[in-house]
């Protein structure tokens, strides 16, 4: 069975500090991978998607970047956090088109 793991579970960071969030999926070969952001009380906003290793497409620019260094790994990062980066970050996977399955998420608080 496939499993999706996100790290860290939660993070408290200072404005201006760097950030790296990770996502790993096991049990699926060459999945499509996605990053979403959800502000507190807000809807889900897709940030990036990747269909294959080394290729990442940006959907919304939020002063964040993403990379896919391995088939099963997706990284979200920034060199300088803003207060507006606070929220719930979700990684998701799919096999081709259709439904996506979400990881447990990382809750980020920027102070």
């Amino acid at each position, binding site marked *: 069975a496939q499993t999706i793991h996100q790290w860290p579970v939660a993070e408290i960071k200072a404005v201006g500090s760097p950030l790296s969030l990770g996502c790993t999926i096991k049990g699926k070969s060459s999945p*499509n991978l*996605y990053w979403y952001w959800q502000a507190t009380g807000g*809807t*889900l*906003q*897709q940030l990036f*998607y990747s*269909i294959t290793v080394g290729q990442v*497409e940006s*959907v919304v620019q939020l002063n964040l970047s993403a990379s896919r260094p391995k088939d099963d790994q997706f990284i979200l990062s920034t060199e300088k956090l803003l207060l507006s980066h606070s929220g719930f970050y*979700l990684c998701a996977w*799919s096999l*081709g*088109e*259709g*439904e*996506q*399955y*979400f*990881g*447990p*998420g990382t809750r980020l608080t920027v102070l």
Partner: protein
Amino acid sequence: GDSVTQTEGLVTLTEGLPVMLNCTYQSTYSPFLFWYVQHLNEAPKLLLKSFTDNKRPEHQGFHATLHKSSSSFHLQKSSAQLSDSALYYCALSEQGTGSKLSFGKGAKLTVSP
């Protein structure tokens, strides 16, 4: 472009009453429609997915039917339970893209005794 419009904001029901959350969409091609449910402090989970062959998906007492004539995929349940209290999102994926899931703004369903 493709988009989803759904029941938004707070929806309050008494246990035992029927649930109806609306979802309409605009799409250039043949889309897949989904309902996701997100309980407090959890990740969204897939609740229902539309079929291309007019079958009506059902899960946990919820069902939804894709009506292409009216571009709708309303979520229904005959009798609300306390455990149904959650955020519900309608989402759309265009066939042939595989890359973008467009979410509605979400409805917070609260079921009270």
